């Protein structure tokens, strides 16, 4: 048996502790990542939920944006939830004028697409390749994926209502992103999928 991988959580802002807790329950080593040199010590990275414009601004200000791009370019597995999904998008809509992203996933993501907090909701979402029931998904001022490139795979969509068919989970190679927050619902299956991706087993 090889040593368990170390998965970092980008700790600029948002629900960092919740991701660390879920990862801890999956038997991997964890660490918070606040400086570029800490990226050298991780086998995978989670970009948490939070406010994407704030996170982007802080990543630029603390010289993390370029190192993040470099590591993603070199194949570091990264999973982004909500704001983290926006950070992984090559193109965004409804961001602020100066909002940068790390990029990596060939997709266009619309920020706050599901509306303001009064419209935030929960729903069941089936995820391709995940055994068992659909996941309970919390959408909080959440983005959706407007369009994807040929190498990107949509693995989860809203199933009913007027937003039916909207893409809310995608995968492209070693990169994974969801509009919603599995770190808040006590269902570790999507984190489990990401750990398998980090181990090269999925």
């Amino acid at each position, binding site marked *: 048996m090889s040593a368990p991988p170390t998965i970092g959580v980008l700790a600029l802002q948002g629900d960092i*502790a919740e991701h660390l807790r879920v990862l801890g329950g999956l038997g991997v080593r964890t660490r918070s990542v606040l400086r570029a040199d800490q990226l050298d010590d991780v086998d995978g990275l989670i970009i948490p939920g939070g*406010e994407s414009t704030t996170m982007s601004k802080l990543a630029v200000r603390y010289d993390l944006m370029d190192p993040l791009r470099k590591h993603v370019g070199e194949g570091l597995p990264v999973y982004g939830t909500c704001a983290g999904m926006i950070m992984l998008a090559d193109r965004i809509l409804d961001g602020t004028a100066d909002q940068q992203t790390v990029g990596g996933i060939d997709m266009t993501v619309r920020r706050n697409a599901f509306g303001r907090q009064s419209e935030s*909701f*929960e729903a069941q979402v089936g995820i391709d390749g995940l055994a068992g029931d659909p996941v309970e998904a919390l959408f909080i001022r959440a983005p959706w994926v407007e369009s994807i490139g040929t190498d990107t795979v949509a693995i989860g969509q809203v199933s009913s209502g007027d937003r039916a068919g909207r893409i809310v989970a995608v995968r492209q190679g070693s990169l994974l992103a969801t509009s919603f927050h599995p770190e808040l619902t006590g269902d570790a299956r999507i984190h489990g999928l990401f750990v398998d991706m980090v181990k090269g087993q999925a």
Partner: protein
Amino acid sequence: MSTTQENPTTSTVGTTRVKRGMAEQLKNGVIMDVVTPDQAKIAEDAGAVAVMALERVPADIRKDGGVARMSDPDMIDGIIEAVSIPVMAKARIGHFVEAQVLQALGVDFIDESEVLTPADEAHHIDKWAFTVPFVCGATTMGEALRRVAEGAAMIRSKGEAGTGNVVEATRHMRAIQGEIKRLGTLDAAELFGAAKELRAPYDVVKEVAELGALPVPLFSAGGVATPADAALMRQLGAQSVFVGSGIFKSGDPAKRADAIVQATLHYNDPEVLAKVSRGLGEAMVGINLEELDDSQRYAGRGW
């Protein structure tokens, strides 16, 4: 039946998880009081995670006197238009109609706030009745848990708003953190006694004992004026801070806002704190609590 809504059997708005989840997203970020769209932009550019839209910052409410109420809807709209980060606004304690108005305006979070003049001397707002999440102030564990029981999705220390004096926020944060530790040491029988002493529902008291934390995020507010104040509250266990008068009553708001964002993030790194504490210009003057008449103390408002 409306066809523009999600099917209610598979999707729901305003659930407890959705409201608390929103509070979780704000953690480790700074929430700043603003009174104009221009201030809101400055706050957003400095890296605020949300802004609190209000008509007067607490320092001016103290100075001007009179009844302090919910802000003008036009003013709140102007701030919602100006920024893309979440916008919060304050309702008076117990004034559920102000809260209904704020929810209708589309604010992302409501602060049922002691900084405004209370509208009900016995009851707080039934926050379960709303889809928008609420934050409430607390000075003690009992107060915090009564607010959670009423549906608050976030608790903040009250501190003493508009004074630029962090001593009350420190007192409240230490009181709540101390009580979290104490509850963790109690057995089942003692927890029933604790619930009675705290005047809070047993289930919520038990949850705190088991979690070793409040069931909702705990922030700090009331008197934070410097980067070191923000870091102090974080080191005392606050998951983040609200800054009211401290920024826009100082000499260089943009610079101070930026410094407080950095200090909130790097709260455990004295070298960063030293760096960001330099060259900020004048801090707000501040008020010593002994100089405040009892009627001028906001932290006592709430029941």
